[in-house]
């Protein structure tokens, strides 16, 4: 048994006064004498605000037995002696005890995010479903306006009539009870975008590039697929939610690293979304009795092109060729679905009218 005794200062925590005490290393705890009454501080109940290291010249201890009391011992040998008896005071034990909640929280978060990935939970989509149509339509208006930038909507009356005929047909074929609104804007690029609230924006360039109404029908059906699945709404909620989550994790300090990560996550969702939209497109075309072969041909034609016309506008904009160009797989899938002859999506006259919708 260690018979060393040490000089210390004891405060009871009720005032800032101290009294000099002698501290002995007893069998089960520190025996403190010299204060109003002798105290015994159990080794296992000792605490310290800052961890104790072997080479420390002083020690400042507390105990749960006497809340508020502090014992200060300015003696080089004491730290080493007490660490043998109270290992919970060491830096390692300290850090583990205090960091445990933090590490546990991270593990929980990782598990939660992992579950979302693995089981394909889609919280953003669930939330999107809760939004009333009025809200979604308002968001869609803003999104369409900002997407179209300064580009004017094409308003040739014959063309608009033909477009609306096609859109009504396809909307009915979605069997979803939703009525879609489509507008064509005077824009060179070859693309189409689904925005929230069952609205679609098609570029004049795409109408020019298309060689038949069936091709345009395929594109529209694809965008309607996005609309049915609420991809545009979910996309917005997701980007809002991701940036909020990252802000939370980085505790208010965002960096390019976390922004890049958020972007990547959104891209990943986009690929799933595109596949779902493709599947819907083929179903819609089948219900409307329009052949998907021209649609597949459209993909193949654009595959052969170099950059330029398939330029994307912004990531996650759910344009047909947004964050990823048309792949041979998508063309093949559409071709494989061409198991029926189908009928023309529009009459020749209507198709010509649509072709000239932008004058």
């Amino acid at each position, binding site marked *: 048994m260690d018979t*060393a*005794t*040490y*000089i210390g*200062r*004891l*405060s*009871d*925590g*009720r*005032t*800032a*006064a*101290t*009294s*000099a005490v002698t501290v002995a290393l007893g069998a089960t705890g520190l025996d403190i004498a*010299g*204060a*109003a009454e002798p105290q015994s501080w159990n080794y296992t109940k000792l605490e310290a*605000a*800052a961890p104790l290291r072997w080479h420390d010249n*002083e020690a*400042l201890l*507390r105990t749960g037995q006497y809340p*508020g*009391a*502090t014992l*200060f011992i*300015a*003696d080089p*040998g004491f730290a080493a002696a007490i660490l043998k008896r109270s290992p919970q005071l060491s830096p390692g034990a300290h*850090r583990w005890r*205090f*960091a445990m*909640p*933090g*590490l546990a*929280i*991270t593990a929980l*978060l990782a598990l939660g995010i992992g579950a979302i990935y693995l089981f394909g939970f889609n919280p953003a989509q669930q939330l999107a479903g809760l939004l009333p149509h009025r*809200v979604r339509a*308002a*968001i869609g208006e*803003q999104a369409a*306006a900002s997407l179209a930038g300064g580009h004017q909507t094409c308003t040739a009356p014959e063309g608009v009539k033909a477009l609306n005929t096609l859109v009504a047909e396809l909307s009915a074929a979605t069997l979803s009870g939703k009525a879609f609104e489509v507008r064509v804007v005077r824009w060179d690029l070859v693309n189409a975008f689904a925005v929230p609230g069952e609205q679609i924006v098609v570029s004049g360039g795409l109408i020019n590039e298309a060689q038949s109404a069936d091709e345009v029908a395929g594109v529209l059906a694809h965008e309607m697929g996005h609309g049915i699945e609420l991809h545009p709404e979910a996309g917005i909620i997701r980007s*809002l939610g991701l940036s*909020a989550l990252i*802000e*939370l*994790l*980085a*505790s*208010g*300090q965002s960096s390019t690293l976390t922004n890049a990560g958020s972007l990547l996550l959104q891209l990943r969702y986009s690929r799933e979304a595109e596949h779902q939209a493709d599947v819907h497109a083929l179903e819609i075309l089948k219900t409307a009795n329009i052949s998907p072969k021209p649609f597949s041909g459209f993909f193949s034609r654009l595959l052969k092109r170099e950059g330029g016309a398939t330029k994307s506008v912004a990531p996650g904009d759910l344009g047909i060729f947004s964050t990823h160009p048309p792949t041979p797989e998508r063309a093949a899938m559409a071709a494989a679905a061409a198991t029926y002859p189908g009928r023309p999506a529009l009459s020749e006259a209507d198709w010509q009218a649509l072709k000239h919708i932008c004058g």
Partner: protein
Amino acid sequence: MAFTNDLRSRSPIPSPPRPSQGEPVAITWSGATWGLAGLGLVNFLLTVITVGVYHFWAKTEVRRRIMSSVRINGEPLEYTGTGTELFLGFLIVFVLILLPILIALYTAQIFLGVWGALAVLPINLLIFYLYGVALFRARRYRRSRLRWRGVRGAMVGSSWAYGWHALWSSILLPFTLMFLWPWRDNFLHAKLMRAGRFGDKPFGFAGGSGPLYPRYTLVFLLTFLALALIGGLGGVIVFRTVKPLFDAMQQAKAQGVTIDWNSPEMAIFKPLIWTATAMGVGLYAALLLAVMLIWSFYRTRVMTYFATQTTLDQATFGLRPSGWGLFWVTFSGLLLSIFTLTILSPVAEARVARYLVRRMTVTGTVDFAGIVQSAQTLSKTGEGLAEAFDVDTSSSFILSI
């Protein structure tokens, strides 16, 4: 292992009334600065692994180490905060304040379109207000978690009221061409200081802003001088390098000639453009450095003056003037932190703390036995607002006691 006969034994339970027995106070530093490098590395690694969640625990451990290096009459301060408290505080603020603000901003943009931009103004005002509230609450949290001989610090008063004072006084600033600044510094510091307690004893603060004005005026003029000088230099550079290029381009356009940037004629412009860019970046850095230098001149005056106006019981504090010392230790600490990707930022903090503690003086006495433990209840969560709004809580942290 020494045995001394200490005759100054005193009963720990005071019995009123009793004559005041003041003791002199000595504040010293006894701890590592560069020794915190190891802690910095561990913190960095754990923070990266946990994608930032560990940040709250890392911050807490650094505070514990630094505060326990500060000695009052040989006995160390204790910081008893925990990372969990900081985390919970942040979480609460995130859900109750940040998220609603984000949603409000977004909804404004969606439904009001262009007019949505106008909604940004009141929201920014709200955020600015919350900034002041956050400062007060962060100080209150930290003071309540600091103990010496078991007695806690505290802060009385309302954080909401303080936030309001911080807001209206800052709105007045541009209307006084920024000359209200020292008055505002003094006004807000007085509020924070007088709200502070050690146990049940309040801190006193007698300061006025008059003594700050000479130094402030000087600094104000120097800033203008720096801006003018560096702006002038910048202008000369632009004139010398970019203008000939611009003229050449105009000439070519007038003659209908397209410029071939790879031709030998254009080759003379390339080194000019490089030099101009380099000098531009250099000037900008020089401007930043100059402004930091000039303003630290003012801030050291503020710190030393405020310290001499602070009292506790019968003691008055002081801070020995430092010249460039304080600026250097802060600036070098900043560089240290940046170049090691914040691995060595605990070291930087500790260096500043040590510098300030070593220059702190206390004249007069404090009757420690007469200071009774603070009766304030401890809040369970800390600094959420300060974390969320990135309120600067570290560099002169040691003086925010």
